């Protein structure tokens, strides 16, 4: 910190609203791609786990191992192959969503009561209709809870990807540290936290909207 400099320079903030907007878009983009792609992969793997119980242990092992690799280490390992690109960032971010998403999708679908499933089969739902019309809707609350966790942790990890030239609000944090400029650093940190809280609130609203029956007992 430079001598005599205030902790936060509001005039700098007022001058950089465009920059914040750009970083917001970047942050949201990185997050949405990661959670979106992660969800598609996780959903597919979840179906495999549900159909082939023997696949559960290896899939859990692989996604669990990915989850334990420190993010910076994972980015560093990928750089020789994919460089300082968005692809590198996304490979890392997607890997981290898988464990949480698969766990919740599988748990949600397994949590569908046996009598409900039996009634559905007995009344002539085809297997695919049971998945989409009965199991997924009933698992939705648990699935969205997983998406919330994955989204929040991804928003946090995106800031780390600033070290490989991506990063959204993470760029502000990194730049602030490098320049010993607290205003920028704090702005980056506060905005990432605010984004995480906002995204979580949005997903809670979405879940209430999509599962009206859970409010009516």
């Amino acid at each position, binding site marked *: 910190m430079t001598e005599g400099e205030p902790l936060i320079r509001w005039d700098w903030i007022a001058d950089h609203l465009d920059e914040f907007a750009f970083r917001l878009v970047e942050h949201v983009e990185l997050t949405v791609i990661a959670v979106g792609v992660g969800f598609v992969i996780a959903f597919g793997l979840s179906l495999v786990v549900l159909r082939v119980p023997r696949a559960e242990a290896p899939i859990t092992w692989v996604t669990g191992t990915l989850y334990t690799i420190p993010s910076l280490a994972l980015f560093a390992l990928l750089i020789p192959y994919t460089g300082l690109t968005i692809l590198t960032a996304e490979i890392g971010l997607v890997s981290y969503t898988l464990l949480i998403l698969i766990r919740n999708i599988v748990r949600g679908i397994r949590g569908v009561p046996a009598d409900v499933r039996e009634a559905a089969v007995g009344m002539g739902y085809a297997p695919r209709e049971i998945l989409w019309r009965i199991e997924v809707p009933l698992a939705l609350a648990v699935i969205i809870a997983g998406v919330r966790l994955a989204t929040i942790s991804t928003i946090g990890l995106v800031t780390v990807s600033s070290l490989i030239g991506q990063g959204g609000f993470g760029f502000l944090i990194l730049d602030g540290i490098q320049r010993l400029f607290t205003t920028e650093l704090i702005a980056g940190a506060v905005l990432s936290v605010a984004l995480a809280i906002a995204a979580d609130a949005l997903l809670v609203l979405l879940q209430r909207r999509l599962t009206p029956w859970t409010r*009516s007992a």
Partner: protein
Amino acid sequence: MEFRNVSKSYPGQLAVDQLSFTVPAGRICVLVGPSGSGKTTSLKMVNRLIEPGSGSILIDGQDVLREDPTALRRRIGYVIQQVGLFPHQTIAENVGTVPRLLGWQKERIATRTRELLALVGLEPSRFARRYPAQLSGGERQRVGVARALAAEPPVMLMDEPFGAVDPIVRERLQNEFLRIQRDQGTTVLFVTHDIDEAIKLGDRVAVMRSGKLVQFATPGELLARPANDFVAEFVGSDRGLKRLGLLTVGGAELDTTVDRKSAPPNAPVLSPAMTLRDALARMLVDEAQVGVVVDRDRYLGVLTLSTIGRMIRDDR
């Protein structure tokens, strides 16, 4: 509906052994027996939730094994004890399930849904938009029956449908079910472990034990002539009394030699539609040896305790 030599075995165990019987169209056949007797397995083979090991099951002369299971199930109503309503769908959507699967027009489904809710005694305007979690156990079970009837299936399978509700509600649901079944003319295969329920609802009762059919008879025959000690014990030592519950005063032999004025003053007045069991109860309460049978002011004769006693013993 016909079972022809149907068997099903699981590793180390024969669940259903050479089961053969026929349920006449429009009638209720009750499969009854202790747990593990194979009754639910037998029921689930009809809509192929369990595939028969051998033998054939025919509906309207057609082998269910030749049909696509999904199409077959849409033609068969299915009610289970836990009801299995879809928690995420409204009552109306639940009832409209099979019509929706069959691709009915929206208005037709809506009309049919209202009709069915009214049929099972649930005011459509009050219940249609609620979710299952907002209903009582008895109400949920009614919805389960309505849902099974939605596409007017010629055949219904019911697996202990009234087992999870309290006795008063069960009795009411049983009576309503009988009324609806007579009204719709549905052929029903009904599983229960409760012999009283079997006798009350069944046009035919199939008693099962260890996967075998022990006796297939009308409730009256079953009570009058149990095929063996197992059936006798299963129907209970009060089977004579139970049998009186199936017979009416009008069907009993009345003594017409006694005129009404000479009947004892404590004799209760009975109607021909009353069951002999109720008549007996009235006579016991009034400490009377006879009851006066009157059909809308017309005196028919007296019913004596000894006639009732004879009918308990009667093996006809």
